[in-house]
């Protein structure tokens, strides 16, 4: 109990004093996770829509695989990216290991299946509704991809947020490919893991509270923006 109350006190203290280390860590966390989600969105939206609209052999298998990949274990993704980016690996010459870029790549791999799979479902449902209408207008699946993505944009925000939730909360992948280097690759989740390993449970939980608060703030901001946009549209 003392640890939990101490954690809230620590969280409040960190926020009130705007602890310089905390700001740096939060800033990097946001930079990494937002970049990863942006990258995953650019890949995942068209990928999901294409999978929903184009008929080709193996589409069912691919859909099942994509859905299964939503459960990719971060540690495994981290390990694979590590092996690729290690100096002894195929992409070692790029010197990206233990940099924020490596963390973005790992998180983007984790998040892309989530965004793509959710997009596929949303677009497939819309297509059932609109298929006949679009065909009568002479619009094939290729033309329908951007149209349906645009039509579903408000729903797709939730898909992107789900991806962001996954990215900002995972620790396994960024720990391996980032190395949790102070001032370079230390983000919220790896900082929490570090404090746990130092036995400073109050500080670890305090950081956890800040992370949850941050996630809450981002979701609230998105929710408000979405509501305004919807109101303006209808």
């Amino acid at each position, binding site marked *: 109990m003392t640890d939990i109350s101490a954690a809230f006190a620590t969280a409040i203290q960190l926020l009130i004093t705007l602890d310089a280390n905390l700001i740096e860590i939060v800033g990097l966390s946001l930079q990494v996770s937002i970049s990863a989600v942006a990258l995953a969105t650019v890949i995942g939206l068209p990928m999901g829509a294409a999978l929903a609209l184009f008929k080709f052999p193996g589409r069912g298998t691919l859909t099942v695989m994509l859905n299964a990949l939503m459960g990719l274990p971060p540690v495994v993704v981290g390990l694979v990216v590590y092996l690729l980016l290690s100096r002894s690996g195929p992409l*070692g010459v790029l010197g990206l290991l233990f940099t924020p870029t490596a963390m973005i790549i790992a998180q983007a791999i984790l998040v892309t299946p989530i965004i793509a799979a959710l997009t596929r479902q949303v677009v497939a449902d819309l297509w059932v509704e609109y298929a006949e209408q679009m065909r009568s207008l002479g619009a094939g699946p290729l033309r329908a991809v951007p149209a349906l993505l645009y039509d579903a944009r408000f729903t797709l925000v939730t898909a992107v947020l789900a991806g962001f939730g996954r990215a900002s909360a995972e620790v396994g992948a960024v720990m391996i490919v980032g190395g949790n280097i102070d001032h370079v690759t230390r983000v919220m989740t790896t900082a929490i893991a570090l404090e746990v390993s130092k036995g400073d449970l109050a500080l670890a939980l305090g950081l956890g509270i800040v992370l949850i608060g941050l996630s809450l703030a981002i979701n609230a901001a998105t929710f408000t923006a979405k509501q305004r946009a919807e109101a303006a549209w209808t």
Partner: protein
Amino acid sequence: MRFTKSLIPVIAALLFTLNAHAADDKFITVASTTSTANSGLFDVILPVFTKKTGIEVRVVAVGTGKAIRLARSGDADVLFVHHKPSEEKFVADGMGMKRSDVMYNDFVMVGPASDPAGIKGSETAEAALKKLAAAKAPFASRGDDSGTNKKELGLWKAAGINPKTSSGTWYRETGSGMGATLNVASGMNAYALTDRATWLKFKNKGDLAILVEGDPKLFNQYGIILVSAEKHPHTKTALGQKFIDWIIGAEGQTEISNYQILGNQAFFANAKPGS
């Protein structure tokens, strides 16, 4: 689609700024152990070096076994760990240049203050381990191929006991770092072997206390090695050597000896002059 297209320059810019940040700095990567990082030593001595030389030191703190693998893959410029036989093998394999002693401290055996197995005051670590095995007292092992884990396994072997056959019963292998293992020991009132620095800094001690210390076999030597540029031409040999020269030189050694945790000297500098 307009939405997704507008994201591309944003991502490009983000990736670019991140990379620019990484490329501009003069830095080396040091693969080291959790004990040196968790003890707070690096937080104190590295800024002194960086201020003097302008070289940033990026520490990846993992177990000794993993640190050596990182260095073998060429993912670090300098290796700074604590298991002499593994370090010497690393050099003998041509992966690293010369190995230098840096500092030492010692391992201690901790356990519940009530000490149900009665190991307190044991003359040797071996005697204590024999008592633990006989009592089947819960023991939290690192189980992660770290320097501390290698040390612990060596002590069991010397005591003529193979604890792995009891793994999952009283012998619990956590497969994680020193702090995480102490958290487990603290949670289940188990015994554990830990380096003294991590123990001093560790905040979640619960009912644990030091029970056995002072056996010469619990000596804990740290060594530093420059990763060979022959195997990995991209390593920053010149900058790495500067760091090694500093840490085994007068200034680095003084900084190490001056570092205290709660009034206790955490590490004892013992580099040989001119080595």
